[in-house]
C-alpha cells in the first residue's frame, strides 16, 4: 500500500483534514468505537459474519454490468455500471449499516440511531436494526421526508421511529445535528450508525472500509471481463461514501483516473448548490475539518440539490485530502443534467437510478463521447430510483 491508502493517522487525520471535533461527552464513545473497530477488523469471526450477511442478506457480490446501449448511443468509451442499486434495500448504504450493527452488538449497544437525507441510509439502518432486534430511531429533515416519502413509509414498516427535524433548512445537516444531540444524551446505551464517510474519527475511515468491497469487487470483475484496469471511475459525492468505496481500492493504480461528481443544483453562480469544491472553503462541521460551504463569518450556508442525498454543506475529509493530492478530480452536475440522466439511463438501459446516482451518470454522458471506444469507464450505480419516481414524475409532468 502507498501512503495514500494508509491514512488516516490514529486520531483520524487525512493530512490537514478529518480529526475529532466533537463535544467532550462523545470523546470516550468515539475512542471506544475506534478501539472496537480496530479489534473487529482483524477478527476473522467478525469478517466472516459480515461477509456472510453481505452475501446472503444483502446480495453481494453485485454485478458489473456492461451498459451496451448507453455506450453505443454516446459513441465513445465503454461504460460499465457497478450495480449497487441491486443490493437489498436498493443502495450501497447497506454495506456500512451491516458492518456497524455488528460493531454495536459487540459493544453491547441495543439502541440504534441514524440520520438520513435521501432515506436510503435510514432504510438500511432500519433494516439491520429489524434484522437484529434493536430499537431504531431515524432523524430526518421534514423537507426530505416530503420529497422521499416512500422511504419514510419503508422505515416505519421496518419498525423504526422516524423523527422529523424542523430546524434550519430541515435537510440532512439538521438531521445530523439532532442525531448527535440524541447520541450525546444517550451515549451509554446507543450506537450512532453514521451513514457517510463524514463526521468525527473513526467514522470516515470505518464507513470507507465497509464500502471498499465495492471497489474490490469492481476491480476483480473488470480484470476478469476486460483483462485490464479501467481508465476512469465516476461516482457521485454527497458525504462521499459510495465514491470512496469504489475509488479506494484503485488508489495505487496510477493509470486509473477518478472523478467525483458533486451536486451543482441550479448552477454554481446562483449559489443554490451543494458543490463544496466550487467556492467552498476549509472549515469544521459536525466533527470533522474539511471543505464546506460557509459564509465569511463561519456560519454554514444553505445548500440546494434536487437530490436529498447530495444536499449537504460538507464533504468527507478524505475527499478533501485526495483532491489536494491530485489523485481524485471533482466536477459537478446540475439538477437539470441529473434529471436528464435519470431519464436517459431508464430509457436506454432499463435502469431507473437514484437522483444521487444520476449525477454520476450525467457526468459520464458529458465525458464518454470524448473518449475513444477502447477506453473503459466504471460508474458507480449507487442506488435505485424508486424513491425519486414521484418527484421526477411531477417534474416531467408524467
Amino acid at each position: 500500500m502507498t501512503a495514500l491508502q494508509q491514512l488516516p493517522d490514529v486520531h483520524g487525520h487525512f493530512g490537514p483534514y478529518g480529526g475529532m471535533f466533537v463535544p467532550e461527552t462523545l470523546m470516550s464513545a468515539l475512542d471506544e468505537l475506534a478501539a472496537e473497530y480496530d479489534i473487529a477488523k482483524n477478527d476473522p469471526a467478525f469478517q466472516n459474519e459480515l461477509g456472510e450477511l453481505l452475501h446472503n442478506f444483502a446480495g453481494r457480490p453485485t454485478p458489473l454490468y456492461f451498459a451496451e446501449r448507453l455506450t453505443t448511443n454516446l459513441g465513445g468509451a465503454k461504460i460499465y455500471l457497478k450495480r449497487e442499486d441491486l443490493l437489498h434495500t436498493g443502495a450501497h448504504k447497506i454495506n456500512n449499516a451491516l458492518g456497524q450493527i455488528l460493531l454495536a452488538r459487540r459493544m453491547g449497544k441495543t439502541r440504534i440511531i441514524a440520520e438520513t437525507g435521501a432515506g436510503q441510509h435510514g432504510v438500511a439502518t432500519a433494516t439491520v436494526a429489524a434484522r437484529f432486534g434493536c430499537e431504531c430511531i431515524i432523524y430526518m429533515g421534514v423537507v426530505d421526508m416530503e420529497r422521499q416519502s416512500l422511504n419514510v413509509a419503508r422505515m416505519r414498516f421496518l419498525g423504526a421511529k422516524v423523527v422529523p427535524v424542523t430546524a434550519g433548512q430541515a435537510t440532512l445537516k439538521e438531521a445530523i445535528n439532532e442525531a448527535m444531540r440524541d447520541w450525546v444524551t444517550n451515549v451509554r446505551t446507543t450506537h450512532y450508525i453514521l451513514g457517510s464517510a463524514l463526521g468525527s474519527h473513526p467514522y470516515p475511515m470505518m464507513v470507507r472500509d465497509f464500502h471498499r468491497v465495492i471497489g474490490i469487487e469492481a476491480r476483480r470483475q473488470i480484470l476478469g471481463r476486460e483483462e485490464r484496469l479501467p481508465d476512469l471511475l465516476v461516482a457521485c459525492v454527497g458525504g462521499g461514501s459510495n465514491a470512496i468505496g469504489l475509488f479506494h481500492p484503485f488508489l495505487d493504480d496510477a493509470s486509473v483516473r477518478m472523478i467525483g461528481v458533486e451536486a451543482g443544483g441550479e448552477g454554481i453562480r446562483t449559489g443554490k448548490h451543494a458543490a463544496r469544491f466550487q467556492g467552498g472553503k476549509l472549515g469544521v462541521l459536525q466533527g470533522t475539518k474539511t471543505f464546506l460551504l460557509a459564509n465569511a463569518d463561519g456560519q454554514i450556508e444553505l445548500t440546494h440539490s434536487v437530490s436529498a442525498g447530495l444536499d449537504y454543506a460538507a464533504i468527507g475529509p478524505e475527499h478533501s485530502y485526495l483532491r489536494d493530492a491530485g489523485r481524485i478530480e471533482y466536477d459537478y452536475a446540475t439538477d437539470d443534467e441529473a434529471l436528464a440522466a435519470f431519464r436517459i439511463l431508464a430509457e436506454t438501459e432499463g435502469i431507473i437510478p437514484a437522483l444521487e446516482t444520476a449525477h454520476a451518470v450525467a457526468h459520464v454522458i458529458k465525458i464518454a463521447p470524448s473518449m475513444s471506444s477502447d477506453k473503459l469507464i466504471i460508474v458507480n450505480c449507487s442506488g435505485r430510483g424508486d424513491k425519486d419516481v414521484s418527484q421526477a414524475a411531477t417534474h416531467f409532468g408524467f
Partner: protein
Amino acid sequence: MQNRIDQCFTALRARNEKAFIAYICAGDPNLARTVDLALSLEKAGTDILELGLPFSDPLADGIVNQLAAQRALEAGATVQGVLDCVGQIRRVSQIPIVLYTYMNPIFQFGFERFHREASAAGVDGLLILDLPPEEDLAAQTETLLHIRLIAPTTPAERIEAICAKAAGFIYYVSREGVTGAQASVASSLAERVVEIRRFTNLPIAVGFGISNAEQVREVARSADAIVVGSAIVQRIFEERAAQDMPERIGAFVKALAAATKGKTNSA
C-alpha cells in the same frame, strides 16, 4: 498581569465563596441589549459572564440555546460584532468574560487573529464546544485561557490529561446531554467533582441543566462555580418586549447568584 478569571477565583476563595456564572447568547435580541444585559447581570451578583458567540449548527445545545443563536444571527450578530460588544462592556466593567462557541466561526475569522482581537477587546477565556484538547494545538496563554470541559463519560486517565492542559477553571458538564433546564441535579455530581479534584487545583465549575436557586445551592456544596444558561436565555426571550428587560433579568438572576454566596461548605 493575572487573568481576570484567576483574579476572580482568588478573591472568591479568600472569602470562601463560590462563583456564579451567567450564560447569555450575544446578539439575542440584539448586541446593544447584550451590553445592557451584561451590566445588569454583573449588578445582580454575576461573577463571570459567559457570552455565546452564535453558530448556525450548535450541536451541543438544546432547543432554548439553538433558538437564541438563530435569533441572534437573524438580528445580524457577527464575530466582529460580538467582539465589539465585549469592547463596549469592557469600557465600564471588569467582569471576567468567557466566550462560548464552536470551532468554525473562529476558524473562518482566523484562529490567531481571533485570539489577538478577542484579547484586545477584553475577552478572558474561550470555551470551544467542539474542540477537544487533542485538536487544540494552541498553547495556553495568560491573556486568553482555553477553558476545558469534562463530561460524566470522561474516564479518569482522560480527566488527568485534560487537567494537565487546563487553565482558568474546569467546566464540568453535569449531565450527559445538551444544554437546557432539568428538573433535578445528577446524584453522582459531588463524587465526580471530588474525582476531578484529584487531578487539579483549578476551580471546578458545573453547568448544563441547572435552572433554579435550589439547584444552585445544592451544586455549590461541591463545586467552585455554578453556570446557569438556558433558564436565563429563556427568560430573556419571554421578557424581550419589555423596556426594562435587562433589569427584569437582573432581578431573576439575583436570587440565583445569591445562592452561591453566604455560608457554603468548602470542599
